[in-house]
């Protein structure tokens, strides 16, 4: 792909190796390759002679398309009529690069050549010339673009990112066809040499953001990057915070929308889930579908999500606080039934809640980890069945099962699942506070979380913007979703503020209202 | 109770020490911070040990109650 050849030299800059030039001697280089790739039997060093020139071909088996290589490259090089002399051969291959594959390049640095081999490229070096030809015929087994598994929508595109970074970038490119969409590639990982690509739209995204991200990534000296989270955890501003500071998505449309808002996308090779930065807490409560459905419905659903966010965080603690400290808050009739059902439960409310919550969390975790064949048996339903049995056995009370189930379901309503994890985690300390100080403790817990969140920044953007600090103009897309024709400006807290994102040239056709 | 205070102060001692070290502050800062911490500690302990320590309220009341009574007339 032509776009990437442009960034090629950057790859070299970023690799930590020193350069090594071994000159024109064929045998020296051959020996170097052989020693470097000793005991790596999947790396083939093939030797052949053409036009009285010995040449070596180094490649990684299984990572190159040997068929095309044979047909398009090898066949021509070894064919008698290809070159008249050694000089002609060098001229044709190395100067003109008249090999009929794309993106060939020339390197002289043998270290770089070796790196290229590991990336799945084919290296050809010749006797009598220090230059080496790099043919990118990388081809390996990869998963096809398939449907989303975690972020499902009713209306909207279905495709999801895959592990291969090139495919992922293509998915974005297909949505945003602009030369302003930049994809800067870095390489991270001493051994894995993982490609990390920062995508952003020039002119929409703030320059400082990109330099900031690049600086943070470049500071990394890590053995390997197997998943985006390696990078995520290392470049966060508040590494000790339980709150996620990057957004993850498996949907190209979400990534594209983020790019259009002026945010940056971080693709990590081998990860089907790119990172979107910066992020605010409210973004975790927005799902892709919000923008595809009608805005009234979406606004309602958003408010519902906020409610359930609170439910998921506070409901068990609220129950504990009320039943153990403020029974006067419950209507008398309800109170009596709650008291009746709690009557033969031996544990205090706090312990009871902990038992149930932990059981529920355990079941949920088990549901993810169990092999698919038996996984169906365990699930949320399993939890409810166990809950029912526990009630009958008199270990927990029936209201507690309801509370825990509602809490559990509420945490599934939050679209950003990493925020949902955080909320699940924070629920427990608040439960302890509520069990010790009642609603006062609950409030203290909330204030602590609130202070922390107010303090938090994700790549320079306050985590709670646009509410704290308040930017009224940006509230259009926070608690409700305003209709598209109303959101004329980009949100100012991330991207370049003073730019329109939507202008309707002709005034909207007048609604036929009477 | 005293145990809790001691634990708390041990904790914040460690915490502030780490903080100041991380920010590589001057020796003087260390001295000031830990002197204040020491004074704070002794005050906290004192409030527990000497139950009837004079409180600042008594002083303020001593100074200002007569003035206020002159201004407002005798309230209550």
């Amino acid at each position, binding site marked *: 792909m032509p776009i990437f050849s442009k960034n090629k030299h950057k790859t070299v800059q970023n690799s930590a190796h020193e350069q090594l030039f071994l000159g024109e001697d064929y045998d020296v280089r051959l020996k170097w390759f052989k020693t470097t790739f000793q005991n790596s039997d999947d790396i083939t060093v093939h030797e052949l002679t053409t036009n009285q020139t010995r040449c070596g071909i180094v490649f990684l088996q299984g990572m190159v398309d040997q068929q095309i290589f044979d047909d398009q490259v090898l066949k021509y090089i070894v064919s008698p009529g290809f070159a008249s002399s050694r000089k002609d051969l060098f001229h044709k291959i190395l100067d003109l690069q008249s090999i009929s594959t794309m993106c060939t390049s020339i390197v002289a640095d043998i270290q770089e050549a070796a790196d290229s081999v590991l990336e799945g490229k084919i290296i050809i070096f010749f006797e009598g010339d220090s230059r080496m030809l790099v043919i990118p015929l990388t081809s390996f087994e990869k998963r096809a673009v398939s449907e989303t598994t975690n972020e499902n929508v009713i209306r909207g595109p279905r495709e999801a990112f895959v592990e291969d970074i090139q495919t992922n970038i293509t998915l974005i490119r297909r949505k945003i066809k602009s030369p302003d969409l930049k994809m800067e590639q870095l390489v991270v990982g001493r051994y894995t040499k993982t490609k990390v690509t920062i995508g952003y739209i020039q002119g929409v995204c703030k320059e400082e953001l990109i330099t900031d991200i690049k600086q943070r990534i470049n500071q990394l000296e890590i053995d390997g990057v197997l998943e985006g989270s390696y990078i995520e955890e290392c470049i966060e501003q508040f590494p000790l*915070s339980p709150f996620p500071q990057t957004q993850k998505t498996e949907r190209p449309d979400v990534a594209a929308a983020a790019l259009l808002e002026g945010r940056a996308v971080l693709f990590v090779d081998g990860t089907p889930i790119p990172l979107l930065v910066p992020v605010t807490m409210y973004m975790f409560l927005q799902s892709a579908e919000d923008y595809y459905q009608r805005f009234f419905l979406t606004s309602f659903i958003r408010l519902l999500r906020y409610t359930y966010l609170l439910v998921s965080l506070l409901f068990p603690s609220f129950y504990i606080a009320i039943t153990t400290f403020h029974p006067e808050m419950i209507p008398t009739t309800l*109170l*009596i*039934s709650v008291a*009746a*059902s709690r*009557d033969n439960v031996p544990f205090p409310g706090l312990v009871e809640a902990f038992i149930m919550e932990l059981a529920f969390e355990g079941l949920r975790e088990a549901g993810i980890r169990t092999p698919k064949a038996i996984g169906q048996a365990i699930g949320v339903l399993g939890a409810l069945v166990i809950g029912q049995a526990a009630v009958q056995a008199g270990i927990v009370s029936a209201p507690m099962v309801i509370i825990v189930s509602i809490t559990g379901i509420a945490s599934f309503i939050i679209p950003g699942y990493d925020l949902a994890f955080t909320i699940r985690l924070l629920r427990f300390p608040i439960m302890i506070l509520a069990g010790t100080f009642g609603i006062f403790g609950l409030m203290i817990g909330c204030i602590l979380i609130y202070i922390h969140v107010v303090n938090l920044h994700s790549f320079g953007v306050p985590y709670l913007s646009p509410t704290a600090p308040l930017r009224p103009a940006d509230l259009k897309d926070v608690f409700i979703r305003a209709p598209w024709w109303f959101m004329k400006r980009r949100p100012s807290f991330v991207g370049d503020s003073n730019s329109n994102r939507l202008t309707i040239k002709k005034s909207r056709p007048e609604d036929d209202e009477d | 109770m005293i145990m809790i205070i001691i634990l708390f102060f041990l904790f914040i001692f460690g915490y502030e020490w780490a903080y100041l070290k991380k920010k590589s502050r001057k020796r003087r800062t260390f001295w000031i911070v830990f002197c204040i911490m020491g004074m704070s500690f002794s005050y906290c302990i004192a409030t527990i040990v000497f139950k009837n320590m004079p409180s600042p309220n008594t002083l303020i009341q001593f100074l200002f109650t007569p003035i206020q009574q002159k201004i407002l007339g005798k309230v209550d």
Partner: protein
Amino acid sequence: MRALKWFMVMSTLLLTGCWSRVEINDCAFVTAMYVDKSVKGQMEVTLAFPLPNRLVPGTVGGSASPGNPYTQVSRTGKTITEAYQKMQIDLPRRISWGHTRIIVVSEEMAKEGIGHILEFIARDPKLNINNAVLVAPGKAKDIENLVPAFERFPSEIVREFTQEMVTLYTTPKDFLETENGDMIVGYLTKGKEKMVSEQGKEAMWVGTDGMALFHDYKMVGKIGLKEGRGALWLRNSIKNASVSIISPTDKKPISLLILRSKTKIRPSKNEPFTFDVYVTAEDDISESYSNINLTNAKNIFQLEKIAEKEIKDRISEAFKASKGMKADVFQFGAYLSWYKPKIWKAVKEDWPTVYHDKVKLNIHVDLHIKRPGAENNPIWIKEINS
């Protein structure tokens, strides 16, 4: 940073404990308090508790439960606190006041004064000052023995009386906000009656009957049912009431159902101790035995006038009764103090006498019969005017 914060919170929690925690199933919720007079100047406090353990879910309302799902406990003491602390010692559960909804004082106790009961209610932080105060004849604690045919607990029945405004919903707050402790409180009656729900056995039955009048937190008298209705009008808490009037044409009764009513009291502009009472009400006709043509606007106007007169009579009777006892239970004094503070200050000291001698009412009733109900004229009236 974050983890450290949490650690700090945790450490305080682990080091301490849960001081004020009382599990919901370790509480005995007071639903009603009954205060009776006991010997030697002591009082007998009776508290009504629901028994949740007899209300296992699923069998609620079923006859399978071994006994009543409620109970009451009585103890005597010089103060309420003393009495209930005695009770606390004997109870396995902590007494929780948060759900107390009614306070019933026996007539005997009320006559001695309920000031200290109110003091207890106002001081206890958990006890609300908006529960209902009622007076009962005889022993107040007998009220709890009534058979709750419609509700689960006896106290709920009594509470519904005040909620539905069958009788006055007087709260401790109403008492406390007065300067002289003059107030009017609903009065209960007790009786025995054969009840179908109890297989025709005789059972205790509680109803409402008139009002008790208080002066200086002491009960000074009682008014009957009819004056009591007038008092409801004056206290602006009439609801679900009916007014029966006599038809002008053939002296047969017509009943009006009051849908909406509002009472406004204002001191009269000219005379210092005269008050204007404005009553506005909207009614439907609920029953008519008369042959009067209800589709005629003139007739309706006539009926309205009669009904107005009826209400006026009730109100003035209630007022007269309170005047006779020198108890300013409708707080006309307060109105005077809001509107004419100077006059009030002059007579504040001997207000009971002034109230008795000088206060007059101008009652203006404005009643409208809005709709005739689901029928226009009674079916037996065939074309009166034809």
